């Protein structure tokens, strides 16, 4: 069998350069891209090509579906946190926070101020790491190996900050109903300032080697344009939405935790092409660096070792728990958490995760497990782009568009 499409008859299937190609009509080919890691995680796009122009694209999701919603119905409230953060391990705080907030809404409690600042601190560290990951993957898609190595190396700075703060590089299980699990360690504020200085310098180098690189610009400018109206109609979220001129960021629209006390901008671009989507992420990293610097400054001025857990849980904690907090800055999980009962009711919470808005609908019937947990992740919302934006582009533009969306299958499939 030859390794190209010459002499193929209608209905015949061949493997060409690792892709399954089927001739479905004269001059019309069906190409299966994936599911073995076409980008970051397993997913498949079935594209139908007229010559090399995409006429139809059918994203085929679910290869890493882990029944998060069903499993949540059989787990105690607290045990759901380590389950759901596996959707996006690098963005764990952002992904779990709206769940925790929804549970807090049902409980009718709010965490103390210091805990709120600590949550924001980790959320923004996660956002930077998540954007760097996305940019690295984008580099791979475009065959720009330096842009793969650099962000993945620099991501380590923020993964290590997260580890120092929470004890885990990824899947930190940091916010819990009522507060957070650890205090800011000694010397952490200076480490954050150092990281911010370093990253600003690096972003300038990214610009020179990648974003302003003439080859990269030729591949991204005017490619995969999502006009503002279409972006709203498709309901896409996050940096992809803001690259299309829509100023929507949950941190501004419905400020949660302490975002209304912090100063930051929401970068918005009008072009809506793949290059604008790359720029939004770079600009957002700069804003997140500003935020974490502000947050550690505020945290330094607050008394240490208190205000990490709501009194509803903390007031009854035995003396040993308070000693551990004083000595190690660690909030031991109270036994009451294991068999927590949440009052009957329905709650909806949203947050701006790295890849966009994530929402939770949580319903309790008063039991020790939720009656229903509904989660919609940003990547699942953005998947619709493949179907509605790819047609009309050349197959060679597919990697550029896929990479620019920062699509993350484990998060989309849940």
């Amino acid at each position: 069998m030859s390794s190209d499409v010459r002499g193929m008859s209608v209905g015949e299937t061949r493997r060409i350069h690792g892709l399954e190609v089927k001739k479905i009509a004269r001059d019309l080919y069906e190409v299966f891209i994936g599911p073995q890691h076409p980008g970051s995680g397993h997913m498949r796009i079935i594209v139908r090509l007229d010559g090399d122009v995409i006429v139809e694209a059918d994203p085929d999701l679910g290869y890493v579906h882990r029944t998060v919603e069903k499993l949540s119905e059989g787990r105690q409230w607290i045990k759901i946190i380590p389950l759901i953060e596996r959707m996006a391990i690098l963005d764990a705080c952002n992904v779990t926070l709206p769940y925790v907030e929804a549970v807090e809404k049902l409980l009718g409690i709010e965490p103390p101020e210091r805990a709120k600042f600590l949550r924001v601190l980790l959320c923004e560290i996660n956002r930077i790491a998540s954007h760097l990951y996305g940019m690295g993957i984008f580099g791979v898609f475009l065959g720009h190996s330096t842009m793969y190595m650099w962000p993945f190396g620099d991501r380590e700075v923020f993964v290590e900050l997260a580890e120092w703060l929470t004890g885990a590089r990824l899947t930190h299980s940091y916010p819990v109903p009522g507060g957070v699990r650890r205090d800011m360690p000694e010397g952490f504020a200076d480490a954050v300032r150092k990281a911010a200085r370093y990253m600003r310098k690096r972003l300038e180098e990214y610009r020179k080697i990648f974003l302003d690189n003439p080859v990269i610009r030729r591949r991204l400018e005017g490619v995969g344009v999502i006009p503002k109206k279409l972006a709203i109609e498709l309901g896409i979220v996050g940096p992809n939405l803001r690259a299309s001129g829509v100023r929507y960021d949950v941190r501004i629209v419905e400020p949660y935790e302490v975002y209304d006390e912090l100063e930051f901008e929401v970068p918005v671009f009008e072009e809506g092409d793949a290059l604008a989507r790359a720029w939004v992420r770079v600009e957002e990293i700069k804003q997140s660096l500003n935020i974490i610097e502000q947050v550690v400054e505020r945290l330094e001025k607050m008394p240490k070792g208190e205000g990490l857990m709501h009194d509803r849980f903390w007031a009854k904690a035995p003396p040993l728990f308070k000693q551990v907090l004083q000595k190690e800055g660690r909030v031991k999980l109270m036994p009451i958490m294991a068999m927590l009962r949440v009052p009957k009711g329905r709650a909806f919470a949203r947050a701006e995760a790295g890849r966009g808005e994530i929402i939770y609908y949580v319903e309790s019937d008063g039991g020790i497990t939720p009656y229903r947990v509904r989660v919609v992740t940003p990547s699942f919302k953005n998947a619709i782009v493949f179907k509605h934006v790819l047609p009309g582009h050349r197959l060679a533009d597919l990697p550029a568009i896929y990479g620019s969306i920062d699509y993350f299958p484990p998060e989309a499939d849940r």
Partner: protein
Amino acid sequence: MSNSNITQEVVERIKSTLGDLVKGIEEHKGFVTVYVDPENLVKAASLLKSMGFDHVKSVTVVDRIKEKVFHVGYHVSSFSDPELAKVVVELATIISREDDAKVPSLTGVWTSAEFQEREAYEFFGIIFEGHPDLRPILLAPDVAEKRPLRKDFVVKEEGIYRE
């Protein structure tokens, strides 16, 4: 204006726009539910869209097995109107819990519901009439047949010994 004031104002506007279509309004934590009859769903959705609710955040289905009904809800909000963006409204309808429960699709009104209606179809077996491409999206077809998010689909926990 605080968010609760805006919510009240939006609820009043919804009441006057939807008129008789509204079968009930419930305020929950973080959103407002507006109930309509299934046959009025498309009309109510179009009216909400004309008010500025331009996208679907979540197609939320809840299996209320004791009451023998499905709760089908569309959590919607706005990207283009900064005031409406602060409010999340759930347009909901209650249908009886049958094997081939049917509800009109809202993909024609909100394209952003397309993939999520497919998801609700495979996990609950709800047929969205008029959907352009109703087939499973996340699950393999044989798994989707089991309608795994229905409450009568019970996940068996395995012990550490395999028998």
